[in-house]
């Protein structure tokens, strides 16, 4: 959960740069509501209990959790056109991306968007 709390610490800067933060896990909606309340998160947690997005991103970790398949940790920074611009796929679940790195990736996405808007 450190990852969710780490993101929360950066949420103002991320949203300040116009980014939308979405967390995805297999947990049901009610449990996610509880986590958001307990940790005081200002971003949304999506419930992927049928592993639709998790499979689409090839992140299924079979028998990774006590109740079967879960997502392996991964973070994607997607630009305004829906293109992946940065990703973090650590090969050990001890390692998580640092919020500063995510922030830097979002900051890099931004200038290109501005440039495109200026295109004729």
């Amino acid at each position, binding site marked *: 959960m450190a990852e969710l*709390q780490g993101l929360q610490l950066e949420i103002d800067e991320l949203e300040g740069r116009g980014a*939308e933060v979405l967390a995805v896990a297999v947990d049901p909606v009610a449990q996610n509501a509880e986590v958001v309340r307990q940790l005081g998160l200002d971003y949304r947690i999506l419930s992927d209990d049928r592993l639709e997005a998790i499979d689409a991103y090839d992140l299924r970790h079979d028998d990774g959790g006590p109740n079967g398949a879960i997502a392996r940790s991964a973070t994607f920074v997607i630009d305004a056109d829906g293109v992946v611009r940065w990703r973090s796929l650590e090969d050990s679940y001890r390692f998580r991306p640092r919020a500063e790195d995510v922030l830097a990736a979002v900051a890099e996405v931004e200038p290109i968007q501005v440039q495109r808007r200026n295109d004729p």
Partner: protein
Amino acid sequence: MATRRNWTALAGFVLGVGAVVAYFALVLTFDPGLHRRFETPVLFLIVLGAGLALSVLGIRQAWRRTHRGRFLAPLSASVNFAAAAFFAWYLFVGSYAVPAATRAPAVGAIAPDFALRDHRGDEVRLSGLRGRPVVLVFYRGHW
């Protein structure tokens, strides 16, 4: 019969098992600041190594009958080495048992679309968020 207490064996046990327990206690705090500082648990491994060395010295002292603990020194050392073996396995093998995700969208690829319900029960469609950057974080879940 040796009468001196085998403090070396005891210290080895406390340091070794203590380092392992302290590491997992730290993991369970979920404190992002602490996690970052101890991402590579060098400090824990050094303390653990010192504990194992003292455990071995403790056995030697008991064996040479300069100190007590002919039974307890090997026993505590065994527990110490077992804890160390588990810790090493977790750090360098167990925690790497995650799928390769070879088909995960690469940088430059279009992010696969999806529609999922948020914690309020409202549907969120990724393609509906075009026009602004999205930070998409998959995590293992809250358990």
